[in-house]
């Protein structure tokens, strides 16, 4: 990698393959995530999008190829090395993953208490600033169980940006939210990315919201990148998979039916077996 690409791309995935239990999930994936951009990884459920985030975060090791963060190969790092890289990352989990035994305030303060020696007064101010950024300063005394799904995700977002990360990863940030919360999260991702000067990686299957905020989109299916480009390019794409996905069509290259045998045979098989018995 030349210094020039390192300066441009904060994360790179090079020829990466990953599989487990004998099944290959990714086969030779290449992606780049330029600094300051919002890049989305899209694909159907079970296409291994979340796994890609875990490979970038070093929670999984690739079978082949590499994920690089700031030029460093993630899976070759020691535990301390990976932890050092992770301090530059913030991750928003699908269900928020807030610590249920801690209040909203303590959840956001958690990374600061773990990784800094800041005095309590400064942690207090920082926590309230982060919560204010997601519009939930007033909820700092609540417990996670008292929050709605959308609020929990915003608190989790405040916690993810607690240490001003360089990379923010979002795992299905829009899944299961009402339209208002979805709009709020959508705006927040773009605003926070630009305000913090961070790079955002969004894993999602919500086309409308993702296309609104993403600068660049990768489509993943069957373990490979099937299409990539700006949202405008992809909207116009004539590739059958992209067309089916973007327009939400029921049938296409991705079949409605899970692979199965002959329908009539399946129905008659039961009757025949009964008669045989």
């Amino acid at each position, binding site marked *: 990698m030349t210094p020039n690409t390192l300066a441009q791309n904060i994360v790179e995935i090079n020829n990466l393959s990953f599989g487990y239990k004998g099944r290959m999930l990714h086969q030779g994936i290449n992606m780049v995530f330029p600094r300051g951009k919002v890049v989305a990884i899209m694909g159907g459920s079970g296409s291994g999008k979340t796994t890609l985030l875990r490979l970038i*975060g070093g*929670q999984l090791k690739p079978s082949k190829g590499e994920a690089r963060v700031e030029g460093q190969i993630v899976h070759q790092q020691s535990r301390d090395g*990976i*932890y*050092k890289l*992770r*301090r530059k*990352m913030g*991750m928003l*989990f*699908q*269900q928020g*993953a*807030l*610590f*249920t035994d801690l209040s909203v305030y303590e959840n956001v303060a*958690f*990374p600061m208490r*773990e*990784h800094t020696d800041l005095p309590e007064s400064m942690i207090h101010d920082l926590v309230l600033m982060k919560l204010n950024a997601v519009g939930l300063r007033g909820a700092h005394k609540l417990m996670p169980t008292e929050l709605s799904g959308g609020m929990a995700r915003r608190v989790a977002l405040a916690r993810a940006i607690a240490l001003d990360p360089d990379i923010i990863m979002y795992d299905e940030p829009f899944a299961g939210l009402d339209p208002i919360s979805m709009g709020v999260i959508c705006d927040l991702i773009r605003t926070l990315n630009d305000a913090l000067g961070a790079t955002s990686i969004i894993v999602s299957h919500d086309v409308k919201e993702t296309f609104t905020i993403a600068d660049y989109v990768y489509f993943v299916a069957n373990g490979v990148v099937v299409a990539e480009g700006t949202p405008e390019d992809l909207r116009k794409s004539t590739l059958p998979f992209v067309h089916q996905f973007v327009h939400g069509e029921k049938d296409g290259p991705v079949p409605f039916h899970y692979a199965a045998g002959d329908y009539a045979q399946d129905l008659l098989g039961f009757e025949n077996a009964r008669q045989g018995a």
Partner: protein
Amino acid sequence: MIRSNILVGLVRILRKIGHNFSDRIWRLGAGARLFGLTLAYSGESFRRFHLTIREVYFTGVMSLIIVLVSAFFVGMVLALQGYYTLQKYGSSEAIGVLVALSLLRELGPVVTALLFAGRAGTAITAEIGLMKATEQLSAMEMMAVSPIARVVAPRFWAGVIAMPILATLFSMVGILGGYLVAVPLIGVDAGAFWSQMQANVDWRFDILNGVIKSLVFGVACTMIALFEGYDAPPTAEGVSRATTRTVVTSSLAVLGLDFALTSFMISM
């Protein structure tokens, strides 16, 4: 045709036995690895000792009621049963010794450990299993905080600290229960009750060995509960099975270890 069917069935059974066996060995290894990691990360967790104190409250203090009430009844029953046998030999004054030795050497550590597995062990497994299912442990890892240092090690040390204290309290309250039945109810002489106990209970062989037993049970019960939670499949069914396994494995481990420790201590 029939013979080949039997053969296929046999192979399937053999394969299942082999699979179960290798699975057990694998789990034993994974448990030992978690134990090693817990010890390795203990230093890191001691730096946040308030977390351990908090867990001592949840595992120890919250188990007090069930442990003390059980102890009281166990002591009373021991005195009743002991008196029934001892009076046949005309040595009913020895009831104090019988109650004290039974509690300090055996029942204190063992019953406390069984109650601990049911009360605190299940809570630990379910909590960690659910933390895993709701991605809280993953989130912690992604924040560059080791879940073993932050979640597992404090609970482990809390269990190890709480168990001997609970067992000691169990024995004390049990003796009190035994006293209330033997002296005011049955009418055994109070002086004989206490003096025989004092004369025949040895500090090292009875009290200290009991504490050592409860320490070992503390390590075993807490580690089993932690491992089952940490290893639980992140589903409702997975967590419920893990919780059941915690009680079954801990109880068997306590009884097995009790036999091993007792034979070792008696032969010394």
